[in-house]
């Protein structure tokens, strides 16, 4: 067995230095201390930060040895000063924004399609990242040349990908392994959708009322019902000569039609229901 050195003979244990925050000047160049994304170093950040759930009658834990501060992403390398410096440096790589494109509408008018791609950088032996192949294509349908039928058909074809409030069609492709292939595929999809929606197939004639996107009053059951009712009323009043066309032409029927359409398309609300009530009353001469 080896001899054990006694406590006093062993070289003294290495002591930790005081943290270098003590040496930092108040007006130092902070982007030099944190030039890139780096984990939080309590000895290099001169802020008295605290984080953590405190025990009873206690305060949150200090920054030394604080795992919570290490877990969260920090943006110490992206202070406004640093970002300004970076932008200045990157100006040389940028071309001028075209002066002719000075408003959003012009941008949309000339460049209606928007493509979103993402590139990923990480520390490691490989530069490939499978998430980088995703391509998102966005276009406003108002900038495409579609008539009513084409638009409805297109919307039916794409389903979930169309947003009604913003009128934007979003196509997200990731089925190909490369970004370029996905981009080509997205453009191909757009082209195909456009051309297909202009064509009218034979079987589209069989569109039933259940397939309709919005409520159309002509040839609907509501029309039939009201006309029958009115004809019966007229017949009861010994006025059988009135024809359907005449009835359809009256103002009350127009009004009623509008109210029904708005009720069915927009749903129930105070406004629509009260309008419907008034129109029915007028129709049946109840006012």
């Amino acid at each position, binding site marked *: 067995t080896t001899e054990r050195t006694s406590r006093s003979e062993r070289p003294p244990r290495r002591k930790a230095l005081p943290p270098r925050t003590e040496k930092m000047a108040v007006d130092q160049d902070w982007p*030099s201390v944190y030039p890139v*994304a780096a984990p939080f170093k309590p000895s290099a950040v001169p802020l008295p930060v605290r984080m953590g759930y405190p025990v009873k009658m206690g305060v949150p834990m200090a920054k030394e040895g604080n795992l919570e501060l290490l877990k969260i992403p920090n943006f110490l390398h992206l202070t406004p000063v640093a970002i300004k410096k970076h932008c200045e440096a*990157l100006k040389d790589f940028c071309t001028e924004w075209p002066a002719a494109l000075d408003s959003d509408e012009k941008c949309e008018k000339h460049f209606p399609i928007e493509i979103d*791609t*993402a590139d990923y*950088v990480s520390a490691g*032996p*490989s530069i490939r990242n499978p998430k980088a192949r995703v391509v998102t294509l966005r276009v406003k349908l108002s900038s495409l040349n579609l008539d009513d039928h084409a638009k409805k058909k297109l919307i039916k074809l794409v389903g979930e990908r169309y947003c009604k409030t913003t009128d934007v069609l979003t196509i997200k492709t990731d089925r190909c392994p490369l970004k370029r292939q996905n981009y080509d595929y997205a453009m191909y999809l757009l082209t195909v959708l456009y051309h297909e929606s202009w064509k009218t197939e034979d079987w589209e004639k069989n569109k039933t009322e259940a397939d309709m996107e919005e409520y159309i009053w002509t040839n609907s059951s509501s029309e039939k019902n009201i006309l029958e009712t009115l004809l019966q009323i007229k017949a009861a009043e010994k006025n059988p000569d009135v024809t359907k066309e005449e009835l359809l032409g009256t103002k009350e029927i127009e009004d009623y039609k509008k109210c029904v359409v708005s009720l069915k398309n927009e749903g129930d609300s105070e406004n629509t229901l009260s309008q419907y009530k008034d129109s029915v009353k007028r129709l049946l001469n109840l006012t």
Partner: protein
Amino acid sequence: MQCEESEDGGGSLGSLAEGPLQALPAVDGSVDRDKVAVLQALASTVNRDTTAVPYAFQDDPYLIPTSSVESRSFLLAKKSGENAAKFIINSHPKYFQKDIAEPHIPCLMPECFEPQLEDVSEAALKERIKLRKVKASVDMFDQLLQAGTTVSLETTNSLLDLLCYYGDQEPSAYYNFQQKEKSEELEEATEENTEKSKKRAGHQFGVTWRAKNNAERIFALMPEKNAHSYCTMIRGMVKHRAPVQALNLYAELLNNRLHADVNTFNSLIEATAVMNEKFDEKWNNMLELLKQMVAQKVKPNLQTFNTILKCLRRFYAFGKSPALQTLREMKAIGIEPSLATYHYIIQLFYQHENPPKGSSLVIYDIMNEIVGKKFSPQDPDDDMFFQSAMKVCSFLKDLELAYQVHGLLNTGDNRKFIGPDHRRNFYYSKFFNLLCLMEQIDVTLQWYKDLVPSVFFPHSQTLMDLLQALDVANRLDMVPQVWKDSKEYGHAFRSDLKEEILMLMARDPQPAEVVLIKPVSSSDCAAFQLQEAFADCAADIRSTFESQDARQMAPQWPASALNCTAVLFLRAGRTQDAWKMLGLFRKHNKIPRSELLNEFMDSAKASNSPAQAIEIVQLASAFSLPVCEGLTQRVMADFALSQEQKEALGHLPACDSDSDSSSDSDSDISGGK
């Protein structure tokens, strides 16, 4: 890190023929700039962090190295870990075949160091040459010759290259892992020694060319030799210190009407510089060679001139004008001198300088010429320039020149030429020393903050220079800070540094030593705090001495340190600590100074304690100090003593006699009172 791009349109701008958009530039997605240009642009926005150590170290208070020795050992540890990992990977390549790197990184994959081909053929010989197996390739060559196959001239030449490069020795088994820096350190050591020790050192490292070794044998066996074969042999002989044979072979080359290439000529210049004894003979031979070079229409390159200058260095004063001639020739041909060129010239002109004789002004010319230039590495000795330049600046005591040199260092990428650790430390120590001597204290302190510890770790001599500068500029308030830094950089146990610090603090009493009930002004407050700070510092230093004592059995306190510490405690009003110090005098058998004892007497009077006064007198008498008499008188005069105390005083041996005590005592105390 994730970054997103969003582009407009698919790039088809052909439809935009209408007016306002004709000015749109073509948007091409292709990247026609350097791949790392963006990163370099972003990197240019960042400067050096002045409180951090180099990035290679872990940035944690416990893991930061505190001295240059430690930093070197940390870096070596890191490198040895890498080497160990490489060794494991190369020993068991079958476990490390999976390649996740995209694109492929060859240096991460295991390397194969054993030859694969086993048959006796030229391809197998080529493989062994590629793997640097000297003995195996020689054996293979011999086998091929015995089997009767002729080996092509090219392969034989590459075999000769291998043999001449390694001097017919096997490169060491792990040559892939070794550091190559041993040779330059030894070279530096030899520069300053005489010829004799140079030769001695020369035999310790490097290989000597043995006569009739494999290279010569194979050379003799070759049926046809071309210029390349001769050149390789000549260069090998010069590298392994056989200049005579090299010159003979050169003569043979000329006889065969072949031409040598520029590298061979460079080696020959080196060879001639070693031969002969007289300087002018050597110089004439070198000129001869150059003429032959011109005759053979071989263009000289930078290495030619650098080799000439390197050899001229050894010619002492004789080499000065040839050196300037060489420099002029170089410029005339249009070859841009490198930093190594200037380094050799500096060494030549300033090597054996004595100030009284007057120094050369060539350094100023050099600096005027190269200020603002960005250099790229062209010669292995380029990294010695800054060290020698700073040495000259320090020798000439010229701060402006030093600033010029430092400015050159910070131009472009020139800081890469600072060299390895010890050279960098030397450069910065000399630079800082010059700053302490000649620059104003504020600027010096700014430089101190800037350079330490991010660029170099201060030697204890550097800290002593800083202390002297503070002393001259009357900024003794910074002394506790310097002590703190000394502790941090591992100089806590250097007694000369500690003595200097204590001496500076204790030399003059700081104003306002008395406790102030209500400070009159902030300067009084500051002065009082300064005394306190000094006392704290002294207590700290005392604790380092005590811990040193605990570890080593022999007591280490120097006398002046004890004196200063006691004085500082007294002045700050820490009487208890001060009295403990007094006890230490007797324990360590060191003599207190008389001023110290007088101050103690003052303090005893202030606290009105005759017992303490008597203790002081007893201490003085124990050491038989001449001041004992004066002290005894003071005690008698100022204190109210009891009868036994007076008797005790009277019986003290040293204070009894009146013969050789100080002359200003006018009453005899013989017999006591």
